[in-house]
């Protein structure tokens, strides 16, 4: 009986192994015929090409592996920025879609229908090439808040130069931990005595007070480095100092956020509408305020509907970031599956590594989101 159940599974596995075996044998044979060698040694070799934007120290004298890390970090950076902005915008637009105000509701609807129905690559091209042309040259840029410059060559912002940065970071960690304890204490007090504690006010106080303390007592100090204009030739300028965000990053993050936010907005709308009307009425009838109804009754139930499809959107956004290659943002695909592949010729190795990397990124996001989903799921008692 067991064998009957097991046999089809074993057969499927065997077929899969055979298929995989056939393809790898075929690839091996073809590579041998062309005198190509399979191996990952190239990762150690000097990359000898430069990258315009890197979160870690890199120049052409570093290895291909280091170049891979630069690309990976750039992919993660644009994905994280995209996810944060898409989520915020998605929630705002999703709520706006439910507004009773006709104008707000229609504006949100038009935004959603417009942006989700245009191919993403076109939107990226639009933001990069059309919007880029509209930006001023460095010498004509008007300062934003007096210190930042948005130009065709990038967004130049001041950077902070820290003294005793570690102590400042510890103070933030301490603030987070103490907020966590305050929350626990507040819950206990409510359960035991039915008295509510103003958790939010205490949390804000703590997150201002502790870092401030580190400045006064811990010797933490930060000075600001401003971008300063520099002349390159008779007609061209740039900025030196501060941090430079390349226009490619801005265009890509913008396009990804605006596109993905439309889908998240629809998820939010579906989630809120999915909570039964009776729930709200029942909550109101026991005397909860509208804010409490939203926080304690509607949102916990809506989130269960919102989270799983939103996970998909986060995965999509991360994978879509590979369109970066079209506009010269140095992500994993452009640097590793592009330049490195061309310079080494190790196509099979590099494409495999790139695929595995995206798989790992996606699975990590899925695990995190599933963990959160389990946490907010209703546990029947």
């Amino acid at each position: 009986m067991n064998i009957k159940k097991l046999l089809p599974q074993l057969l499927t596995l065997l077929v899969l192994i055979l298929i995989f075996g056939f393809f790898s044998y075929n690839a091996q044979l073809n590579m041998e015929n062309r005198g190509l060698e399979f191996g990952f040694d190239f990762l150690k070799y000097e990359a000898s090409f430069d990258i315009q934007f890197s979160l870690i120290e890199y120049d052409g004298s570093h290895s291909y592996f280091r170049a891979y890390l630069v690309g990976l970090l750039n992919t993660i950076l644009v994905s994280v920025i995209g996810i944060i902005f898409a989520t915020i915008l998605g929630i705002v637009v999703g709520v706006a879609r439910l507004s009773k105000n006709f104008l707000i509701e229609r504006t949100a609807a038009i935004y959603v229908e417009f942006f989700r129905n245009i191919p993403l690559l076109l939107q990226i091209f639009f933001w990069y090439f059309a919007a880029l042309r509209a930006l001023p040259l460095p010498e004509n840029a008007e300062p934003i808040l007096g210190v930042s410059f948005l130009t065709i060559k990038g967004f130049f912002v001041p950077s902070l130069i820290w003294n005793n940065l570690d102590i400042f970071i510890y103070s933030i960690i301490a603030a987070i931990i103490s907020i966590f304890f305050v929350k626990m204490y507040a819950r206990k007090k409510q359960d035991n005595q039915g008295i509510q504690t103003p958790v939010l006010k205490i949390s804000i106080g703590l997150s201002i007070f502790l870092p401030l303390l580190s400045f006064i007592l811990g010797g933490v100090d930060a000075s600001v480095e401003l971008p300063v204009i520099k002349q390159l030739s008779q007609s061209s300028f740039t900025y030196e100092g501060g941090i430079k965000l390349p226009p490619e990053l801005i265009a890509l993050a913008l396009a990804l956020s605006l596109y993905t936010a439309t889908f998240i907005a629809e998820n939010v709308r579906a989630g809120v509408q999915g909570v039964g009307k009776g729930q709200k009425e029942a909550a109101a009838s026991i005397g909860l305020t509208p804010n409490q109804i939203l926080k304690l009754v509607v949102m916990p139930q809506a989130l269960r509907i919102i989270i799983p499809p939103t996970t998909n959107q986060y995965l999509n956004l991360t994978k879509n970031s590979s369109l970066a290659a079209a506009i010269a943002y140095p992500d994993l695909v452009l640097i590793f599956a592009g330049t490195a592949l061309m310079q080494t010729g190790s196509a099979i190795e590099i494409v495999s590594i790139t695929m595995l990397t995206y798989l790992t990124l996606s699975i990590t996001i899925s695990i995190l989101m599933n963990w959160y989903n389990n946490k907010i799921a209703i546990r029947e008692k």
Partner: protein
Amino acid sequence: MFKYLKQLTSLVAMVAVLFTFTTETMAAKKSKTLKNTQKKGFVRCGVSQGLPGFSNADAAGNWSGVDVDVCRAVAAAVLGDASKVKYTPLSAKERFEALKSNEIDVLSRNTTWTATRDAKIGLTFVGVNFYDGQGFMVRKNSGINSVNDFKAGVSACTNLGTTTELNMRDFFNSKGVSYEPVTFEKADEVVAAYDAGRCDTYTTDKSGLAAQRIKLSNPDDHVVLPETISKEPLGPVVRQGDAVWEDIVRWSLNVMIEAEEYGITSGNADSMKTSDNPAVKRLVGTEGELGAALGLDQEWSYRIITQVGNYGESYKRNIADTGILPDRGPNELWTKGGILYVPPAR
């Protein structure tokens, strides 16, 4: 008696086998690519996504350029008709994979011959059809007159996956100037970004700069700097492992160059058939056995010259008359002060 008969037959068989091996070393039998091409009836050729003068399609989809002419020469030699070519436009990133994975049989796409590419990628360069070098284009009003005028922080637009990316680093490092490389997959995007002011300079092969300059909104506002920072011998590439096909492509190119050397053009090839010069007679197919050695017929080189023309005609038609690079520079025959020099077709 039977015993001897048996031995005799086996001897005959052995001799027959040996005979086949020695006389039937017909190139055609050995070359899989040649056989496939003749069966399909067209040459599969990888070209650029649009580089005027080298490989560029007009509005009707007709390809022209010096790189395209190499494909046409191969088609004329192998199939008897220069128009029997199937063109596949490829980006710099895709080109070698397309050739390796058997999607095309000749890559004729302004590709620089380097040791790494030749030795490591599983490809073979068969010759040089254009001697080029990397240069820089800047805006005229920048006041930059030389590569020595670049200052730290300069941003340079270029194509990704090219030797340009590597040369650029070598160059700026040797000058001790920090720079910002902005690399795009397609040439059109490089041009658009440079045109918009994203970059201070656009760097690629000088022929490419001359060709792409036409696409800028105000070509006259831009100038190519005089210095050349690298050697870029561009030429056709084939897959490794098919020596006969490699020879066919190599000699199709060489025939075009040698025809110019001997003054044979598409117009006078017929009258050249009665020439007294054996070198000329070999090229127009009235003497020599070169065709058979390549697995082709006697008239293969004659067809290249009549249907495509010699190298000089091709250069004039595609590069000089279009105003891209009127001066042939190093791409002039060795007899006229250039460096075009090919082994004799004999």
